[in-house]
């Protein structure tokens, strides 16, 4: 069955430290993967999609099909990065997303 796993419920780092939010997926075909972010009192918004291979707000994510992972990374965390991050899989390109449970990132000063 298709599944997205985010093993960490909470990740706490200091400002300036590197951060990696883990995401693993289970899917036999070619997945479309996304990272969504929800800042405090704001709506869920798209951060990255793997197909675009872009860097947004200093974050990057690389799809590793061998390890079935799509980890989100940033070399130097900022306090404004504190938020809830969700990894999501669109497994049939039909728009139906399967979400991980989310990781709360807390960046301390």
């Amino acid at each position, binding site marked *: 069955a298709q599944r*997205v796993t985010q093993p960490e419920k909470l990740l706490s780092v200091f400002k300036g430290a590197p951060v990696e939010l883990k995401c693993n997926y289970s899917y036999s075909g070619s997945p*479309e993967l*996304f990272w*969504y972010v929800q800042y405090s009192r*704001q*709506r*869920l*918004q*798209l951060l990255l*999609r793997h*197909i675009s291979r872009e860097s947004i707000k200093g974050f990057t994510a690389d799809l590793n099909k061998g390890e079935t992972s799509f980890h989100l990374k940033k070399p130097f965390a900022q306090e404004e990065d504190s938020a809830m991050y*969700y990894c999501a899989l*669109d497994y049939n*390109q*039909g*728009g*139906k*997303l*399967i*979400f*991980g*449970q*989310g990781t709360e990132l807390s960046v301390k000063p």
Partner: protein
Amino acid sequence: EAGVTQFPSHSVIEKGQTVTLRCDPISGHDNLYWYRRVMGKEIKFLLHFVKESKQDESGMPNNRFLAERTGGTYSTLKVQPAELEDSGVYFCASSQEAGTYGYTFGSGTRLTVV
């Protein structure tokens, strides 16, 4: 461009009552999705409209939930009768094309059934 609008933002109802949630997608977006997050669980898909047609309603939990999108514009999600386990945040999202481009989400409706 106006975003995806949901209302009410909060709703507290008693078990057995009926509640209707509304979602106004971005104008021109044919695809409209409903998701929900119950306490402590992940965000789960409920259903997907393409214009006024239900493309996929595999996530609807039971027949107490009824979603409509008359005319292919706004959508409503009715819960009747509401149960305690229906409490959670209900999200609506819309997109111009399904699949690779991601969605725009609304702010969600927090439903509490007491």
